[in-house]
């Protein structure tokens, strides 16, 4: 009985190791250093008014951006959050561009498949068919750059 209790306590303690909160870093550059040191990162950015969770080399499809040509490179200016496996930095409401830089290249301007929208009112002889193709722009997200800052204190 005592050994059984000891074993459950040990397994509970070992599981608790991974749920203890880490000490908060002193400043934003320190926090970003921690994030940069991890193998992969993600950002939460808003593009054309919608928020997306993005990582490098993703293909993002947004409604057609008419001011932009194929091959243009866009800088994402509204980055709300940058994170990695264990750390996250959230901006209020945006992280300034001096801390995080992400670029997106316009890959293509496409249209979706043809949609046939049928409008009908029964027993009134009213039937209309609308043909519609939605226009999209596809963007390839570039690498997430976290520039090194001189004000980060060394631990």
């Amino acid at each position, binding site marked *: 009985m005592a*050994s059984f209790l*000891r*074993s459950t306590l*040990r*397994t509970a303690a*070992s*599981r608790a190791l*991974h749920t203890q909160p880490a000490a908060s870093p002193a400043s934003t550059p320190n926090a970003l250093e921690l994030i940069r040191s*991890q193998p*992969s*990162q*993600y950002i939460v950015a808003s593009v054309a008014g919608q928020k*997306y*969770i*993005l*990582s*490098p*080399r*993703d*293909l*993002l*499809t*947004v409604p057609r951006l008419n001011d932009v040509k*194929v091959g243009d490179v866009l800088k994402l200016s509204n980055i709300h959050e940058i*994170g*990695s*496996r264990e750390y996250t930095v959230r901006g209020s409401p945006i992280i300034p561009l001096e801390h995080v830089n992400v670029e997106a290249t316009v*890959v*293509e*301007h*496409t*249209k*979706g*498949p043809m949609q046939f929208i049928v409008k009908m009112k029964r027993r009134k002889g009213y039937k209309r068919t609308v043909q519609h193709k*939605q226009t*999209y722009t*596809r963007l390839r997200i570039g690498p997430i750059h976290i520039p090194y800052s001189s004000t980060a204190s060394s631990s």
Partner: protein
Amino acid sequence: MVFEYCDTYTSSANFRTYIHNHLEGIARKNPHVEFVVKQRPNKEPVVRGFYINNRDKVICLKGLEVNGIEKKVELLLDSSGAKIKPLKRRIVESRNEAARVIQQTRMLAVLDTRVPGMHD
């Protein structure tokens, strides 16, 4: 991009005007694209776009005015050659694993925390 037209057919008349007036300007603006103009006698005018993924898009230009032809050429230049598929649900296409996922080797280490001699 290959432009195929006929000298005599009336359906190619607008296309011939386009070739005379606008084609050179478009070709200069897009130096990464090779523009070829071919004769295709006794057939309707057609423009073919060949893409890197070995697919091609063919658009018939019969019945189009010059600005209609301009729009179709723009469509071919803007496209990547990918097959048209429904894009409403495919917003982010990613091949990366999620950044916040615990890696599998680490997960195995967490599970295997049995202490020898404690479990009977």
